[in-house]
């Protein structure tokens, strides 16, 4: 144990995701040794992010104003909505540059064990967005684990009567990988979802 404020800093850092006690200690001592200007810049960034960033009123993505950049962008296709669990999933999909529609961030997945039901996710907001009939396709891009699948099934059932095209991202083998290194579950899924080669 270190004295007073140093230990406080280590404890605070240790609460961050992915930071264990050893890493927390390393970061704390790095900050102690760092240039005061650097540390102020970090403090400033932390305060700014809490003060300025809010969540998009439309899609729930992180935004710096009432709406996020994607929802404000007139070039994005308003007929397609891609549903994801977290804002970081939006970033991941944006990197592909494949998707030109808009997003809807749920804020998690249905999981009774963690006490998360449909009412705790931004599902009502999604239904409101779908009500005007502009949207024709809903892409369900929740995580490919049990909770993500369950959330996708739930949404698909909910949206079916609306006459939408509801699609689910494919799961299978990573591109550029070796078949032999794929785990059995992934490889099994890939077999299930195999497709006809059009030649």
């Amino acid at each position: 144990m270190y004295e007073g404020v140093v230990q406080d800093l280590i404890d605070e850092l240790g609460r961050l995701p992915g930071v264990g006690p050893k890493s927390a200690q390393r970061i704390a001592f790095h900050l102690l040794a760092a240039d005061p200007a650097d540390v102020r810049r970090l403090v400033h960034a932390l305060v700014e992010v809490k003060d300025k960033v809010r969540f998009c009123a439309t899609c729930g993505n992180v935004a710096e104003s009432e709406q996020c950049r994607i929802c404000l962008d007139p070039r994005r296709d308003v007929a397609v909505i891609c549903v994801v669990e977290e804002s970081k999933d939006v970033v991941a999909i944006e990197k592909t540059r494949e998707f030109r529609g808009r997003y809807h961030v749920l804020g998690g997945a249905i999981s009774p064990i963690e006490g998360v039901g449909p009412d705790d996710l931004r599902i009502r907001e999604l239904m409101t967005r779908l009500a005007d009939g502009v949207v024709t396709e809903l892409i369900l891009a929740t995580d490919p684990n049990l909770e993500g699948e369950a959330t996708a099934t739930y949404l698909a059932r909910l949206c079916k009567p609306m006459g939408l095209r509801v699609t689910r991202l494919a799961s299978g083998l990573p591109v550029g990988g070796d078949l032999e290194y794929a785990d059995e579950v992934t490889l099994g899924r890939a077999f299930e979802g195999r497709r006809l080669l059009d030649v």
Partner: protein
Amino acid sequence: MHVAHLSLVDYRSYARVEVPLEPGVTAFVGPNGQGKTNLVEAIGYLATLGSHRVASDAPLVRLGAERAYVRASIVREDGRSALAELEINPGKANRARINRSPATRPRDLLGLLRTVLFAPEDLALVKGDPGERRRFLDELLTARTPRLLGVRQDYDRVLKQRNTLLRTAALARRAGGGRSGALSTLDVWDEHLAAAGAELTYARLDLVAALQPLVDKAYDALSTGGGPIVLDYRSSMSEDPLPTDRAGIHAVLTSAIAAGRAAEVERGQTLVGPHRDDLVLRLGPLPAKGYASHGESWSYALALRLGSYELLRADGGEPVLVLDDVFAELDVTRRARLAEMVAHGEQVLVTAAVAEDVPPALAGARYDVAAGEVRRVEHE
């Protein structure tokens, strides 16, 4: 396949032990409590990532040590050898290495070494709860088809989520009203339960059908009548025999879930599905549990393992057969018959308290095990 070398560090009673092994029969002989079973248990652990004796890892580590190491060099069918290593860290994640390079997950070890292990604890297969028999089936399933481990884990996870949901809903109802939306996702969990449950049930039925004649044959050889053996899969979904196709099972499970909903909401748990099924072991017209004598139960349990062994052999990739302390319970005739059945296995490891218990047909390499030392006995 066979194990060419076993090395243990801080495992159970052993601070360190090196045991070179050969194909064919090897007997570990020594008085009780000297560490014979620990050797074969370690081999079983490497193959299944679990001990046949304890559920937690803590007892596997020598008193005073922090972690245990199990290392085996395995010679596979194609003549290539692999070095499998496992670091057992009780309370933490175990770590595996294959051919000296770290594996992503210990699970990657599965399939590298295949074993069928019979031990006195297996009497619980016959006399114990349905859970013992479900575990027996599921372990054999994943040994044959590793993909089904994923299906089983999915099923367990759906079950946990669904039970939590039902429990929350039951509590809310008792508290009077509560959130009406609590059960709005139940349909979704039903669907996932039915999908994973049907797949698991289908695989189990398929396995039981393949296993039945082999177990019957083994029992017939081990005992003097009382048969035939019938493995009767009893499903919680229906009194009638289940359909033999996946889609049919899926339909039965789906309607059973729908029919049982009121009771499930009332009790706050999932009442139908493969987690409530049983494999009724019949001996002639009667269930073995409650009717079979001690000797018959013993032979039955042994026949289940020998049947599994034959099944895995038939699939290709001959497993290592481990018979822990089996001979003391059998009379001379049955010992001889058992010996005849297994003598041609690629590798058979047996343990016995006294050398005389090991039938002459299984005369192979012999090790004396005493006070944590394993010493090879040269034939005179």
